[in-house]
């Protein structure tokens, strides 16, 4: 959906991730970019250069926060220090919505720093939704949860991934950050039809989309974010926008990062794939 309660009713267009190799270019050339996505954890510090840089970016650009370590799906309670620092950053950036992943990654206070897949069970969905509500109420900002790419499935699962995602967001009454590249990667790793996934999530809850590149190995696909977006992912993105509307879209490029212009031009290619959604909107 272009603007809805899950993205703070913001009609954002195409953005890119704010990454270190581009800092100098952005600050000196001030390129026109609709919005930047920042990794929250990179700026949840107490001082120094990261916050100085962030403040300069905030003077010029719209910024949306994306987290990698809230671990909504971990059985542990949210870490209080984490929440306090995140809230402080939310106040600084005035992010209209905040996203993090539908995954787990810590247990008993030990962190793996990975986005580990959930066992898709009703009990796990209830616990995850409870944490999303708690975090949203504390931060006072809409939350979108992102589907992750995964390389393993569990015997304990009771439903498909898209059914689990739906169960969680309905229970939590939160939004979805639909990562179409992750859907594609997981579909190849687990042998499901990615269109079934996109067709069966609640489209009215999609507040944002992610696109990215991946790497194909002999027996699996890795979500590497180090390539341009591949054709099957663009096609899936086009299909998703037809169903969900033209949503705020973010290109992730996190490794082997090329020039700012190359990344931005790759992101803007998304405009070529939203004709179906435009026609549907007329």
């Amino acid at each position, binding site marked *: 959906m272009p603007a809805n309660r899950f993205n703070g009713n913001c009609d954002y267009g195409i953005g890119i991730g704010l990454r270190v190799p581009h800092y100098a270019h952005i600050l000196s050339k001030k390129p026109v970019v609709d919005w930047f996505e920042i990794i929250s*954890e990179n700026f949840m*510090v107490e001082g*120094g250069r990261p916050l100085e840089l962030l403040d300069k970016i905030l003077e010029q650009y719209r910024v949306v926060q994306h987290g990698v370590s809230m671990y909504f799906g971990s059985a542990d309670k949210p870490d209080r220090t984490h929440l306090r620092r995140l809230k402080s950053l939310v106040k600084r950036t005035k992010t209209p919505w905040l996203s993090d992943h539908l995954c787990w990654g810590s247990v008993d206070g*030990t962190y793996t*720093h990975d986005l580990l897949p959930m066992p898709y069970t009703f009990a796990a969905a209830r616990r995850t939704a409870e944490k999303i509500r708690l975090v949203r109420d504390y931060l006072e900002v809409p939350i979108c949860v992102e589907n992750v790419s995964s390389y*393993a499935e*569990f015997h304990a699962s009771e439903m498909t991934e898209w059914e689990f995602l739906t169960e969680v967001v309905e229970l939590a009454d939160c939004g979805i950050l639909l990562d179409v590249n992750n859907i594609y990667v997981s579909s190849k790793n687990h042998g499901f039809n990615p269109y079934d996934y996109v067709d069966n999530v609640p489209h009215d809850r999609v507040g944002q989309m992610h696109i990215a590149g991946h790497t194909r190995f002999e027996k699996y696909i890795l979500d590497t974010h180090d390539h341009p977006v591949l054709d099957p992912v663009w096609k899936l993105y086009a299909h998703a926008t037809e169903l969900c509307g033209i949503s705020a879209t973010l290109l992730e490029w996190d490794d082997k990062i090329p020039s700012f212009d190359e990344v931005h031009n790759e992101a803007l290619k998304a405009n070529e794939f939203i004709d179906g959604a435009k026609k549907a909107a007329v």
Partner: protein
Amino acid sequence: MKRPPKHAPVRIESTDDLRLFQRMMATAVTRPLSADDGLQAKWIDGRSMEKVASEFIKPNDRLTSFERLQLYNQMYWFRLFDAIRDDCPGLQAALGERAFGRLAQAYLARYPSRSFTLRNLSSRLVQFIGQRPSLTAPHTALALEIARFEWAQTVAFDGESKPVVSAAVLARTPPGRLRLGLQPYVTLLDLRHPIDSYVISVKRRDAMRSEASNTPDSAGSAWKPVRRAPLPRPSRTLVAVHRHNNRLYYKRLDPGAFRILEALSQGRPLTRAIAAAGPGVKPARVRNWFKSWMALGWFCARGNKRNRRAS
């Protein structure tokens, strides 16, 4: 992390079940890699890892349960190795690739991350090197100093900054009662080697190597070949690792200046701290030091009793 259950729960019907499942998976993911950088063949209780993995992970038509779990195990270690290597280029250069790899794996196995951010990953490395000197022998003393220095850099980069003590406060407080704090991002180091020069030379070498090579990094490679750098010769070095205008700096300190700053950081009042410089230090020098430190914004109100000296 608490010990995992003997078997992963077959059904996950409660948060407790979820926690047991996550303990099982996290223990497997964080288990040290085998000698050939794969998932260990045996579980913690000696059972076959193949069998344990198959109890909770589904295979597919291309990968066994073991292989799927191994992907996560490898990604965990490669990610953390990358992070700790980024934090400790000097230590890696001093120890060489293999010894640093052994140290990193042993450290992360003993002290897995307890923070939501990788920024704090090497926060206990100094402590660990002291606990396991055999991993850095015969260069343990040097390794300790480099690890202290490199952690001080992390603190200086994004550590807390407190309001600078104003000239008005200084003017109105009697020196015998004035206690100044050092900014939390400033670390004083009393070193037996010129670690600052050494780390600079390692960074320059790495930068030159990076500029000289157009070979793309290979995804998933755990270690890049790093030869040991020539080790620094002993020479007492007193240095403050700090930042100014949000850029990282190393400031060499005169012994008298170091003693004053150390005394201030220990909470001594100004007059006693200045006395710590020693009888041979002329007042004009002390005035110049304070002028420089004030210009750098190093002094703040004393908020805690933490000793800023990290040597």
